[in-house]
């Protein structure tokens, strides 16, 4: 893989990287992509093929794929968790997170 491509990925992923590391990653990617590229050689069997013989077998996701809904109402008191959560923040002011100017 080309170094330029790695630079683009590092930018997209918002990670600052040394040139040296990017070169190393470019090399690693060649072997990793060669390995995972195997999936492209799989001839996919048609969905549920051969599973019809008297089978009422559920798929795993049939058990857990359901929507979790609740009423759209406020369930906590105003500011109940603010202090606790902001304690983990690196920079705050007046109960808000402080960020750099973006415009």
């Amino acid at each position: 893989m080309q170094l330029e491509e790695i630079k683009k990925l590092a930018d997209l992923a918002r990670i600052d990287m040394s040139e040296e590391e990017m070169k190393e990653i470019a090399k690693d990617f060649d072997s990793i992509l060669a390995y995972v590229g195997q999936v492209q050689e799989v001839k996919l069997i048609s969905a549920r093929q051969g599973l019809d013989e008297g089978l009422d077998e559920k798929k795993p996701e049939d058990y857990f794929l359901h929507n979790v809904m609740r009423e759209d109402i406020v369930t906590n008191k105003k500011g109940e968790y603010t202090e606790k959560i902001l304690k983990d923040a690196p920079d705050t002011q007046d109960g808000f997170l402080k960020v750099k100017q973006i415009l």
Partner: protein
Amino acid sequence: MKINLKELTIEKAHESLKNSEYTVTNLVNEYLKVIKEKNREINAYIEIYDNVLEQTKKAEKMFKNGTATLMTGIPIAIKDNILFEGHIASASSKILKNYTATYDSFVVKKLKEQGVVFLGRTNMDEFAMGSSTETSAYGVTRNPLNTSRVPGGSSGGSVSAIAMNGALVALGSDTGGSIRQPASFCGIVGLKPSYGTVSRFGIISMGSSLDQVGPLGKTVRDTEILFNAINTYDEKDSTSIKKENRLKSLPLKKKIGVPRSFLSGDGTDPEITKNFEENCKKLEKAGYEIVDVSLPLIKYSLAVYYIICPAEISSNLARYDGIRYGLHSDEQKLYDVYTKSRRKGFGKEVRRRILLGTYILSHGYYDAYYNTAIKVRESIKEEFTKAFLNVDAIITPTSPYMPFKFGEKLEDPVSMYLSDLFSVPANIVGIPAISIPSGKNKNGLPFGLHIMAPFLREDILFTIGKDFEKLAPNEI
């Protein structure tokens, strides 16, 4: 007060606590003594919690007022990616070095109710990315059975804590083998439950469609007890299985499948193959019929995994921005705050996987990798469903490698990834799987037997596991 920690199980400890042979304080102090003595070398724990005494007192009260359960007073270690309110949870990463959990994970909440004593948080590969616990930002963990070897990973700290008798049981997490492979490397039992059985609420995410929390212990029964204590529906995890959909145990066919063609590939240590054949004979002796099962696509599981998992990692780890919590690099521009915080906070393997996932999901490559992988994943699931029509379980070795030396595989990612060859399919399919000790080689390094069962059939793993345990008693 001297308690034989090596032979101790949850049920034995419970009996003794109930009959006042010793108190929870006595028991916890025995473990703390061992930790003090051994943790400097092994580095299983990153931190011993400052409120152990308080937890101990609460458990003792439960024994006094008759509300104690099997888990009350049991000293347990938890992996550093499990949130425990008021305590640091860092996923063994620099980026979360000072992150204090603002709430309890579901598993911690459940165990707290039962008066479990959390001793501390254990070392792991950074964000659970690794198979040796070498990628932790807090130093390597050593295998208590042979300190020149890795304990496996990513739950290497939790496993070592038990193997050095520094905890009775522990919780780990398993995305591609991170409970089972280290359990095998350190000679203990580790269960990855079915996807959706144990809530992921409050677990630091890696690959959300693969992650599952599970128990580690010295015996099958101990992992079963701990599993039962956390195996309930949680409305806060949208993939948690509702109570009415959870199965009850059913009778067994007493038939076990072996995917021979998958196992015959080179790359598996010949010692492991030999041990595996002996394990098959033992199971036959226990009354199980061993048959060949055909799983032609199983060999693609690891490739599927290393597409889906990095893809999920790249989106899950986007939350670490240096602004809301975690490591913050103070820069002039916002863009630099992001990029520098993430450079300083993430280790090498984490950076590599984020970039890999970014590539896999990027325009132009998405179809070739991610889309193909999720289709192959579906086909592998079907293949397993079909195979389970004829057998109760499918067995393999837990890992193709024996516990390896430090640094041996760190520079070769594909070789490191291959240590999960046999454990990854269970995560791809979502089925439960367990690793059980199956003896040691002449150098004292342990082997592991890996058993997979149909979705939600943990009961099969416990039944076969206990039968096997009788024939292959474990010694740590």
